[in-house]
């Protein structure tokens, strides 16, 4: 589904990703771990098409298509979803309005009719319940005045409604208490399917107790320096990153 080859990315002239290779097949869950500043969030940003990130070398193929040539909305239409580390507050646009615009945009791209207001309301309410958000959050401005945990639940809500093919979760677990972490993990687990791939970007092993990954990668200095199975995460938890980053240096 996703094939990243020798990816080099710079921000304002500074190289952040430095020859990253990663291949993910449908049905797989990959965890990307690594110390601060290793380029984890840059990878998420590049996959979603954020401006200001320049791919200077290498490629990102998504279903055989050059992902870097697509606008952010075009990526979303093709099933790419990024759960933001810092979801943006948009006062004046209600969450409901936002969710419906998103869902209808994706439906339109698939050649499906827009949802009826009543059907969408039902779906949105049910999904709110699933992620543990009061339905009042639908009437509020997008993320406006939400707590950190509520913002993350709102990301999950969007992910469940948009049913992406490739979901990238950028530190969705950070700042969550253990209950919220369980809710997020349950949500992600319900999305796991043979057609879908998930990338979990995280600092901590604890999320991986709830969402068991197929592969774990360690990102350092803008490259993947070690890949392994789920047991690699446990090893990292025990030993930290030092033994790997020193070995790689």
């Amino acid at each position, binding site marked *: 589904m996703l094939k990243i080859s020798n990816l080099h990315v710079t921000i304002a002239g500074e190289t952040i990703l430095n020859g990253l290779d990663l291949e993910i097949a449908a049905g797989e869950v990959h965890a990307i771990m690594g110390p601060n500043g290793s380029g984890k969030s840059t990878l998420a940003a590049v996959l979603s098409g954020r401006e200001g990130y320049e791919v200077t070398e290498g490629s990102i193929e998504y279903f055989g298509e050059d992902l870097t040539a697509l606008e*952010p*909305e075009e990526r979303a239409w093709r099933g790419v979803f990024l759960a933001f580390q810092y979801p943006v*507050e948009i006062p004046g646009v209600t969450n409901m309005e936002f969710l419906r*615009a998103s869902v209808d945009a994706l439906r339109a791209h698939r050649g499906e009719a827009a949802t009826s207001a009543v059907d969408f309301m039902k779906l949105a309410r049910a999904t709110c319940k699933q992620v543990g958000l009061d339905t009042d959050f639908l009437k509020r401005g997008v993320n406006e005045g939400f707590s950190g945990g509520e913002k993350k639940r709102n990301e999950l809500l969007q992910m469940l409604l948009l049913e992406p093919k490739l979901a990238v979760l950028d530190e969705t677990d950070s700042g969550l208490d253990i209950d919220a972490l369980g809710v997020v993990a349950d949500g992600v687990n319900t999305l796991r399917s043979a057609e879908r791939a998930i990338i979990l970007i995280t600092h901590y092993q604890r999320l991986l107790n709830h969402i068991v990954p197929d592969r774990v990668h360690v990102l350092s200095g803008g490259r993947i320096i070690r890949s392994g199975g789920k047991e690699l995460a446990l090893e990292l938890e025990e030993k930290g990153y030092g033994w790997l980053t020193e070995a790689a240096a």
Partner: protein
Amino acid sequence: MTMASTLEQRLDEFTRRARERSEALAADALPALAALREAGRKTFATTSLPGPKTESWKYSRVGPLLEEGLLDRPQAETAVPDVTGIESFDAGRILIVDGVVRDLPATADGITVTRFAEAGAEAAATLGRELGQLADMSERPFVALNSGLIEDGVLIHVGPDVQADSLELVIAQSGDAGPHGAHPRVLVVLETGASLTLLERHLGTRAVFTNSVIEVRIRDEARLEHMRLQLDAGAGRSLTALDVAVGRNARYDLQQALAGSTFRRNEIRIRCEAPGGEVRVGGATLTRNRSHLDTQMCLEHIAPHCSSNQVFRALAGERSKTVLNGRIHIHPGAQKTAAELSSRNLLLSHDAEIDTKPELEIYADDVKCAHGATVGRLDERALFYLRSRGVAETQARMLLSFAFLTAVVDAFPVAAVRDAVRPVLEAAFLAPAEASRP
């Protein structure tokens, strides 16, 4: 006039022709009108038209008002344009076309809506008392011009404690109007304890000069909900003076949705004359292409214990220009005044211009006064967030821009009007930019 003539020559020419037109008017039977016309003519003759050095006209040049034909009388028999109202807003309609009163609604007991020319004894007495009392002519030559050329107008009078049905005031151009100058005049008087909802709509895109003066007297305990829609862009030259006096414990609510045109300027003066007055003003504005929109706001807090809250939100695209001068003047003795003004503006293009100027003059020491103005661009992070969820860029820009206007549009007191405003603004926002002329 040729293009080669200097501004000064054009101003002189305009003044001369205005005097000629005023002097050519037949003597008026109504003493109030005759007196006002005389005063207007005299003031106009002694007041210079605003030039480049006139501070309050710094961002609005009079050029577009001085063009050939814009002082001419409108043609006598013109077609009444389509002024289809707002769905499910049921209101008696006052229709003024090319400055001529064309239609008036039937009204219930206690409410008078009449042409000045057909005023009965009581209405004539009200005119004698009130007409020209609020629209101060000094330093305002176009108010003087309106007065000097007055032939007719509309009086809306709501008697004591009468809760009137909604009225709609439509100031329109005829569909076939050639260049002319129209000078509509409206006087609204709400007696003690009266209430009224008034929707004012300006229609027309032709190169016509519409110089309106609206005076509003809200007596003690009375309440006026005033909605103003000026949503036609185009070649119109529109200048509207609105002068409001708010009495004891009276309430005035003005909510506006405005688009720019070749020239549009609204001069609004609201006087809190007695304690307990409450004023709320909103303005949601959109200018595009080369249009111009100038709001000159002046809140005079004369009496103590009054409050005013003003919220302006402006979007300016292409090469358009939006001006807001927000003056709050707190007179000595106006203690315990609470006055707020917020002006937030979004530039949608690098070539657009927004001039927003706070002006506070405070001569009382126990007041709460807040004034904030910002000019910015759309939040790129929010734009990316929406796009990452599949919302196409154009739609994302619109959602964010309208999120910005929402605070004002939502303040419209009548749901039907609020619901009608939004799609009009959206369509105006989404319309492709005009090809810019060389």
